[in-house]
């Protein structure tokens, strides 16, 4: 199918994009990589009157270090995230999760900011962003503001980005030397996660000193597995210890039931995948 008609603008600065949002009103839609938006437009599940293409704004692309943070422009492609040496060294978890997004063609075009702003509960990048305590920089008519990951994801497909605003940067604290693993369970290649677990741990002399775990698709928003995190700290990273701690992975979650899995099966998956993810991250 072909999308319904829309007008199209391609701003070259964030300021121009904010102005375009103001001019476009309620009915404007931002286009990042388009790998979620274009299928939606083609199915005519949305018919915005104006598309604002963010692809021509150089300041929204690229990865840079700033003190204790790694800053990723919202329009940085998944492909560029997976190849970036700074992220590999300091924020390995986001890179591991990004490698599993969809397929190579989609990763070439899709962007980190676009995926996070889309906030699909089965999307793979929200859980690692939450686990890593990422900060989201949002530009709007009144300048920029920063929102913590814990406050950014509000509900299914709903974020803290307000009317007339756009996501410009994602700022990650550095986790240099931490192990990382994204364990994804899906039905076939390139399918959405039924459940996935993002785990990053710091191991000192065989003992887990810090652990951060985010769950994908275990609620309308990503969820931290805090009970598992605290159970792991101070434990030696043995299979027994990790599997025991992982039993708490489904605490505080409210997974949906659909054609792929019932809620109880999703809870089971969360426990199993958490064990696998932590063991791999600690290895």
């Amino acid at each position, binding site marked *: 199918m072909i999308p319904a008609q829309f007008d*199209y603008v391609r701003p070259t600065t964030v300021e121009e994009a904010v102005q375009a949002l103001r001019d476009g009103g309620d009915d404007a839609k931002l286009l990042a990589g388009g790998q979620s938006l274009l299928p939606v437009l083609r199915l005519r599940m949305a018919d915005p009157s104006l*598309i604002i293409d963010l692809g021509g704004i150089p300041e929204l692309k690229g990865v840079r270090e700033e003190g204790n943070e790694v800053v990723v422009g919202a329009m940085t492609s998944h492909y560029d995230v997976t190849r970036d040496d700074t992220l590999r060294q300091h924020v390995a978890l986001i890179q591991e999760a990004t490698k599993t997004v969809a397929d190579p063609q989609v990763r070439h075009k899709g962007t980190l900011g676009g995926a996070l702003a889309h906030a699909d509960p089965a999307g793979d990048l929200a859980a690692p962003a939450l686990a890593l305590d990422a900060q989201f920089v949002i530009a709007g008519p009144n300048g920029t503001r920063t929102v913590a990951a814990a406050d950014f994801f509000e509900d299914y497909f709903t974020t803290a980005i307000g009317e007339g605003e756009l996501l410009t940067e994602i700022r990650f604290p550095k986790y240099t030397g931490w192990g990382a693993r994204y364990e994804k369970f899906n039905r076939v290649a390139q399918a959405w996660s039924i459940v996935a677990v993002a785990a990053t741990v710091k191991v000192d002399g065989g003992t887990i000193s810090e652990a951060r775990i985010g769950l994908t698709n275990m609620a309308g928003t990503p969820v931290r597995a805090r009970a598992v995190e605290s159970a792991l700290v101070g434990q030696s990273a043995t299979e027994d210890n990790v599997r025991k701690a992982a039993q708490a992975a489904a605490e505080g979650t409210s997974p949906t039931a659909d054609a792929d899995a019932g809620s109880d099966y999703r809870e089971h998956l969360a426990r199993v995948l958490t064990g696998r993810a932590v063991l791999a991250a600690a290895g």
Partner: protein
Amino acid sequence: MARIRTTVDGLVYEDDVEPRMLLVQYLRERLGKTGTVIGCDTSNCGACTVHLDGLSVKSCSVLAVQANGSEVLTIEGLERDGQLHPMQQAFHDNHALQCGYCTPGMIMQSIDLLGENPDPSEQEIREGIEGNLCRCTGYQNIVRAVQDAASKMKPGASPTAEAGAKQTVAGGGA
């Protein structure tokens, strides 16, 4: 209408297009490049894969206006002086198709894969083409074709390497 200027298979084109026109429609309906096919219409199948500024994309999930100022390479731009690209030749030699509908996308994605990883393992090939569906072959001969092309495209590979030498008829007992 929006004015776009693109280089497609080495030639520069300028056109006025509706913003909603998909890149695959532009290639097929305006430029007549019907070698790039539309498969699933849901961004799953990868049959419409082309290269946009050197990277594979699904041309049903890119607007023609997003390709403004870019270089596009389609299956029709691979041949050189009447010679098939080594990947096209490998698909032919290894019988890597039955109905052939997925083939343009498979070939474009396989070339992209070898650009990233010139010597992929079987598993890496399977993962590299995970965005391309084939409903006929079971992928066996496609994977063989990519392995074959990889061996021939390697720097210093012998141009006389025999393709499909193992595909002889079994037995005979003589």
